[in-house]
């Protein structure tokens, strides 16, 4: 427990506050600028309480932004830079979890649940007991009844 507190104590020093973390990097190429912006929003600040490196004021976040800038300017792709970061800090540094065996349930889960939900829905609707078979009204009575019901439905329908 004390070790835990020790590590935390140290980390607190480097933890940034949530303020405008503004660097004045210049880009000649708008595509590179866009790549940089996307990366710094998807890379996690390792010493913060759940922030990306774009928004964090922490020193380490600043340095990671600089590294990202340098690599973007050097022409590396988004995947390459992300891989570079993961090689050093693990998948934790990416806000977009990779698609691998361990995260399959995560990525596929919502849509599976959706399909299950829809399947259950169809079953429930189909299982509804049908109205009794023998007609109790004559054709003429039935038509009058339907006309009356249609009128009533319209007034009823919005509540």
């Amino acid at each position, binding site marked *: 427990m004390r070790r835990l507190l020790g590590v935390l104590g140290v980390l607190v020093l480097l933890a940034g506050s949530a303020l405008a973390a503004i660097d004045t990097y210049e880009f000649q190429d708008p595509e590179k600028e866009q790549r940089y912006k996307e990366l710094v929003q998807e890379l996690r600040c390792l010493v913060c309480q*759940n922030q990306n490196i774009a928004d964090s004021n922490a020193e380490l976040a600043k340095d990671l932004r600089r590294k990202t800038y340098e690599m973007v300017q050097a022409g590396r792709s988004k995947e390459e830079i992300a891989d570079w970061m993961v090689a050093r800090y693990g998948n*934790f540094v990416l806000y977009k*979890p990779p698609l691998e065996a361990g995260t399959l349930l995560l990525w596929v889960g919502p849509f599976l649940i959706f399909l299950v939900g829809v399947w259950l829905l169809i079953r429930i*609707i189909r299982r509804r007991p049908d109205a009794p078979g023998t007609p109790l009204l004559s054709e003429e009575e039935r038509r009058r009844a339907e006309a009356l019901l249609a009128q009533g439905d319209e007034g009823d*329908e919005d*509540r």
Partner: protein
Amino acid sequence: MIPELGHFALILALVVALVQGVFPLVGAHRGYASWVALARPASRLQFLLLLVSFSCLTWSFLKSDFSVLYVAQNSNTRLPEIFKFSAVWGAHEGSLLLWALILSAWTAAVTLFGRSLSPLMMARVLGVLGLVATGFLAFLTFTSNPFERLVPAAAEGRDLNPLLQDIGLIMHPPMLYMGYVGFAIPFAFAIAAMLGGRLDAAWARWSRPWTQIAWVFLTLGIALGSWWAYYELGWGGWWFWDPVENASFMPWLAGTALMHSLAVTEKRGAFKAWTVLLAIFTFSLSLLGTFLVRSGVLTSVHAFASDPSRGLFILLFLAAVVGSSLALYAARASKVRSRVHFEPVSREAALLLNNVILVVTTVSILLGTLYPLIVDALGGGKISVGPPYFNAVFIPLTTPLVILLGAGTLARWKRDRFADIWAKVRLAFVASLVFGLAFPAVAMGGFSWRAALGMTLAFWVFFTTLKAVRDSARGRGIGGLSLSQWGMALGHLGVGVFIVGVTLTSIYSTEKDVRLEPGDTYELGGYLFHFKGTTHLKGPNYEGDRGEVVVTREGEVVATLYPEKRNYLSGMPMTEAGIDAGLTRDLFVALGEPLGDGAWAVRLYHKPFVRWIWLGALIMALGGVCSALDRRYRVLARRQREALAGGVA
């Protein structure tokens, strides 16, 4: 003395809550009328005691009584008065006391407005609420006492986190808690109904306005949080899918499903067991949120400082409440099932699909929020799940929901046909496509498929809602619409407005970080930003610099903005953005670091339609209020009271 009084009142409230929880429930089960009669007075007494306790804590803050540990940790003599007041709920213990107070207030409200309920039902509802209150008050008394003393008393307190010294802080948590706690009422109703073995349309009619009001508060609370983060944090964002944000969003989604499900149960007597389950689900999510935020299992800027032993207490409480409710559900659900017939194409089916999508979305967000924890606990290492994941999942799931919204509101109850619905919506469908595809190119100056999709969905909502209003007004005129119908229209309209805000701001925002010297200008989004330099500035508990930025468009001055960089006495630097708010766009300037020679790193934003995000939420909330105030709830309540009075006499 005052803290002792507050502490004493708290302990008394715990005892009263226990009485309120146990006696009426046992009494209702065994038929002891005197025990049943205890429910109302106990509820009101509990509220009064907690009011006293909370007032004592507030008093301690306003008087800067640093002999109280909680006050010393969260306040300071130099803190402006209004923030001393809001600091009461700025950290764990005080906010929990606020939770308990609000729960007792809602409970007392039930005693006031529930005179049309049968005494047995009332007793069960209040009893359940009493048990929930007991749990919270026990947690407070035994692990999180806000009145704990600091001996010797500190001469000066630690400052309140500067991020929290803001009007948004004053409003946001109380609103949220009103929402979270409010969902305890339909929950208590569901439990009471299962205990009594009876669930009819009257139960739904009773639960519905309470659910709507709770939902309204939660909507406002979340919107406030988003708005506050936007202007206070200086990075122009309004939602991060942070675990604590998700903890508030999940009950909102479930609560929305519950509102819609209650509509069907009230009108058609269908979905009874499902509505009960949803009521349990929604309040469970409120409690789960409390657990996640205060136990330390999740990492978040919003999380309260915590320790795992507190977490265990909350978990046990959560397990007791939710576990027993679900066990009761398993036992009694078959008794309350509906046997109502409806066709696959009908409003009932549409609302059922609405519920499915909302619940699936809620569960997906829960999955994403908990996944890092699960993987880590099972030894799979650490991963992060953030906005890229949640956006990738949320948008595909809610798009069909929005489409359904349009078709569902125009569907008939019990039985309808695709052809008839299509006949009603085809004009709206075509118009939505036309406007949706045209808007990005014409109004925003650049086409984008994502923007087109968003705008088409928004227009679809607008046009179908308009059609629904027109159809209802036919023959009666617009004044003939009931509040309930207005509620639905506004609620849906709010969704459309929200979609406009999210779509346009996400796609068409521009931002730039630049180095500016006094006299420099920069062009962004068609506006020219003139940096005039900074002046030194001194506040009540901070010092800093204040910049002046004049914004012009085509030569005319549009706004003058004053972004600030503050250094609080507690050592934390803060930035206050200069924002020119507008209906069609926000202009946003934030100061970074001084770069020497009067030059500054400055961030400029042009954010089109960002206000529509919170405007949409406001309109939704207004819709909820309208629905809750509909005449028939009041008329029916009065009639039932009269009937009861007549029956008893």
